[in-house]
């Protein structure tokens, strides 16, 4: 029984047949770029998938959703959602030998919108992702001095006291919010461009340009370093971390399972979302990368291997991060307890060493029994290690505040700082390679630029335009804009695109044809696992996540957190509501890429009806596909 599919006339004319593929393979026809070797391809895909999210999103999710128990939904959804989607993108790219626009246009011209949506999401996400890399570079540049600039508060102008904003919060907070971002108090308050940030942004885009100049010819060489160095640094940090006091507490805290969390639906939804975003699906980059492979490359094996590497990296990075967080929490606890002990010694004029960590509790009890007023007047802080450990932070807060603070407490701080920020830089840069690929190749396919323009020029224009638009993030309010982009540009449109991809391949391209293609490419038909996941399970999971996200975002009051030194709760971040005009921006970020899918279809429909252009005439003239046929 054939699996139901929608009518799709002219498909055979738009895509190369199996014989043509064999011929192209043998003759190496066409000037389509190719990977130098399989290692480059695997490293590039691993680099694209493994990014900053593995380091600063997954550990937070793990710790806040029941520690070791979070592994269960994560692994289940990795297998049911991540691997099938990955295999699908690899296979379709390898079969149709084209970037994202070329692939979806070849399947059905009305689906061009899916490719264009991928293009726009890659562009928007690439812009703000590279800004994070600019921040990482700023910290990297500032690591070449001892003591590190975020280890102590600066002194005010007349050398009488420490700067008030710093004294009330902490040196790391001050360095991040004031010295680095010079953040304003709200998103509406733009505050002008910060020249040091503009320089770092320029540096980030130039480095990206030099690595992506000639497409995979240059990125293929760069990934030897950018994809492997993070693992080396993580291992160094693991060894260093394990020798520090308190690191094992952190790891124990991370992995202690709380199975009750499995009953909470948001645990499963967060796990699903994390798997989805962690694989960089629906950006179009993976389709592009796999289209440079030879036709008979085993994409099924690649998908499984890369998924396993991605999952392993998440867990490994979580271990390293939490060993260092455990160290920091222990330091904070020791400082807190030390402060209390000192206060007691000073108040009662007891000799040093009379109260230690060991007898603190009973000493406090004794003193409280005899002199309760004095003890109360000291305002002793409650020091609880678990509280310090569960100050779970994610995102930029983890890297630039929590981790940097931990680094300042380690001996030879500049070395650890340099290593850490090189690792973040490599993680981010290798993800950007995929983003740029997902922008440049569709632009070439859409013939936006004249064909004879070299790839260097197109990449240069993309980088230049992205840099200019990304200057938004170099303002004082840049941090808030970035959080906005992160919440909306990189979430809902990707889910829509992924869902459309699966529907397109299974129902429009035809799962039976797809199975035959895979049999042609790797030698055996995909087994029952792939069939079930592609047809039902994965689309269902993506749909559920999308509905949940949509409802949550639409129904909740959209707020953001701001750093406002004049607020009452300072240094706690202030929760502000977005101004009304932000909703227009949110619509542009999330709505327009998603609406491009039906929008382009409608556009092509109008073209067919009004201009009497037969869309099914094979007008697939994409540079990346090199299939030029006309049926007369």
């Amino acid at each position, binding site marked *: 029984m054939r699996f139901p599919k929608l009518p799709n006339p002219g498909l055979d004319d738009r895509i190369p047949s199996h014989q043509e593929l064999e011929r192209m393979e043998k003759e190496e026809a066409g000037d389509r770029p190719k990977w130098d070797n399989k290692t480059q391809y695997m490293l590039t895909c691993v680099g694209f998938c493994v990014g900053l999210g593995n380091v600063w999103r997954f550990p937070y999710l793990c710790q806040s959703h029941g520690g070791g128990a979070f592994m269960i939904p994560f692994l289940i959804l990795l297998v049911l959602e991540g691997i099938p989607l990955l295999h699908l993108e690899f296979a379709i790219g390898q079969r149709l030998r084209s970037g994202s626009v070329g692939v979806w246009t070849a399947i059905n011209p009305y689906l061009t919108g899916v490719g264009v949506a991928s293009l726009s999401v890659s562009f928007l996400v690439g812009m703000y992702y590279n800004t994070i890399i600019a921040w990482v*570079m*700023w910290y*990297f*540049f*500032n690591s*070449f*001095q001892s003591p590190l600039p975020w280890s102590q508060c*600066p*002194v005010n102008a007349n*050398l*009488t*006291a*420490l700067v008030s904003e710093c004294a009330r919060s902490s040196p790391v907070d001050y360095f991040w919010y004031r010295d680095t971002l010079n953040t304003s108090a709200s998103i509406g308050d733009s505050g002008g461009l910060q020249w*040091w940030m503009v*320089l*770092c942004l*320029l*540096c980030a885009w*130039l*480095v990206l*340009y*030099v690595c992506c*100049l*000639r497409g995979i010819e*240059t990125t293929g060489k760069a990934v030897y370093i950018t994809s492997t160095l993070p693992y080396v640094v993580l291992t160094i940090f693991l060894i260093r971390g394990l020798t520090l006091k308190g690191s094992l507490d952190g790891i124990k805290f991370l992995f202690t399972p709380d199975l009750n969390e499995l009953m909470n639906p948001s645990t499963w939804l967060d796990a699903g979302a994390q798997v989805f975003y962690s694989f960089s699906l629906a950006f179009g980059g993976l389709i592009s990368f796999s289209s440079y492979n030879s036709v008979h490359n085993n994409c099924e094996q690649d998908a499984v291997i890369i998924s396993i590497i991605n999952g392993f990296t998440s867990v490994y990075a979580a271990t390293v991060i939490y060993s260092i967080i455990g160290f920091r929490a222990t330091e904070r606890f020791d400082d807190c307890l030390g402060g209390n002990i*000192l206060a007691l*010694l*000073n108040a009662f*004029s*007891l*000799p*040093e*060493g009379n109260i230690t960590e060991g007898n603190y509790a009973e000493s406090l009890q004794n003193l409280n029994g005899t002199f309760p007023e004095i003890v109360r007047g000291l305002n002793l802080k409650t020091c609880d290690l678990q509280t310090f450990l569960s100050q779970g932070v994610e995102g930029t807060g983890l890297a630039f505040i929590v981790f940097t603070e931990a680094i300042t407490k380690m001996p030879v701080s500049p070395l650890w700082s340099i290593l850490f920020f090189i690792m973040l830089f490599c993680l981010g840069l290798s993800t950007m390679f995929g983003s740029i690929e997902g922008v440049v190749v569709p632009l070439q396919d859409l013939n936006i630029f004249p064909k004879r323009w*070299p790839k*260097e020029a197109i990449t240069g224009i993309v980088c230049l335009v992205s840099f200019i638009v990304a200057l938004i993030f170099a303002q004082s309010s840049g941090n808030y804009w970035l959080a906005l982009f992160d919440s909306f540009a990189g979430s809902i449109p990707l889910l829509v695109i992924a869902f459309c991809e699966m529907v397109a391949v299974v129902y429009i391209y035809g799962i039976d044809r797809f199975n035959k293609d895979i049999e042609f490419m790797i030698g055996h038909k995909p087994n029952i696992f792939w069939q079930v996941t592609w047809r039902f399970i994965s689309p269902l999971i993506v749909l559920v996540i999308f509905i949940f996200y949509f409802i949550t975002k639409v129904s909740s009051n959209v707020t953001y957190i701001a750093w406002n030194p004049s607020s009452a709760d300072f240094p706690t971040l202030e929760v502000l509501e977005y101004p009304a005009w932000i909703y227009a921006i949110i619509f542009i970020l999330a709505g327009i890429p998603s609406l491009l899918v039906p929008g382009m279809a409608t556009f092509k429909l109008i073209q067919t009806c009004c201009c009497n252009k037969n869309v099914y005439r094979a007008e697939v003239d994409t540079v990346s596909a090199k299939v030029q046929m006309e049926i007369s």
Partner: protein
Amino acid sequence: MLVRILVLLYLAGAPALAQTLCQPNASNGYMVRISIKTALGNQAYEWNENEMFLFRATMAFAMRRYYETKTYNVDNIIVCDQTPRVSFWFVVTSPDNAAMLTPKADVEKAVSMSRNRINNAFLLTDRTLEFLGIDPTLVEPVNPNTPPWLIVFGVVIGAVCAGIIVMLVSSLLQKRRKEKGIVEDGQDEEDRQMKGVENGNILDGSYNRGFTDDDRFTKL
């Protein structure tokens, strides 16, 4: 005789006088708190009378250094209310008149001026040798002329720009070489046609001019 009695009374009363001058929360006195174990750990020394003598001597030195003319002595530094914490109060009497106390502000300025020397005498720091009420002097931050981050930035940008230029130039050269190669191939084509090549196969045999295609060149 009367003079001797007065001298005896004075000598007897001086310590008592001194004691009344130095009191906890005295208006012209400061409290000192010393945390030797915190600062030195295993190498901590014990606080005893000799150390106290050194403190008084150091304070006298600080007062001398500040005033530059008055000669303060160890006797001018009076200490009281010692606790096991190691904390105590001290007052400074004027060298001219043992009953008069040096004002608080002057003592503060003298201590601030010689703080480093006082700390080093005891192998302590501003935090572990506290003068309650006298803020530790804040170290003026070292401000290099070029911030160090700009130097690293300059190095990285220079390397990246050099890389971009090298790669663009090499791309251009490659393209020029390719174009030259194609032009030369084109000229070969013409030569081969002149020599009667058909379908890429060079024909053997004698060359019959009758069949050459030189209409291209001569037009009647």
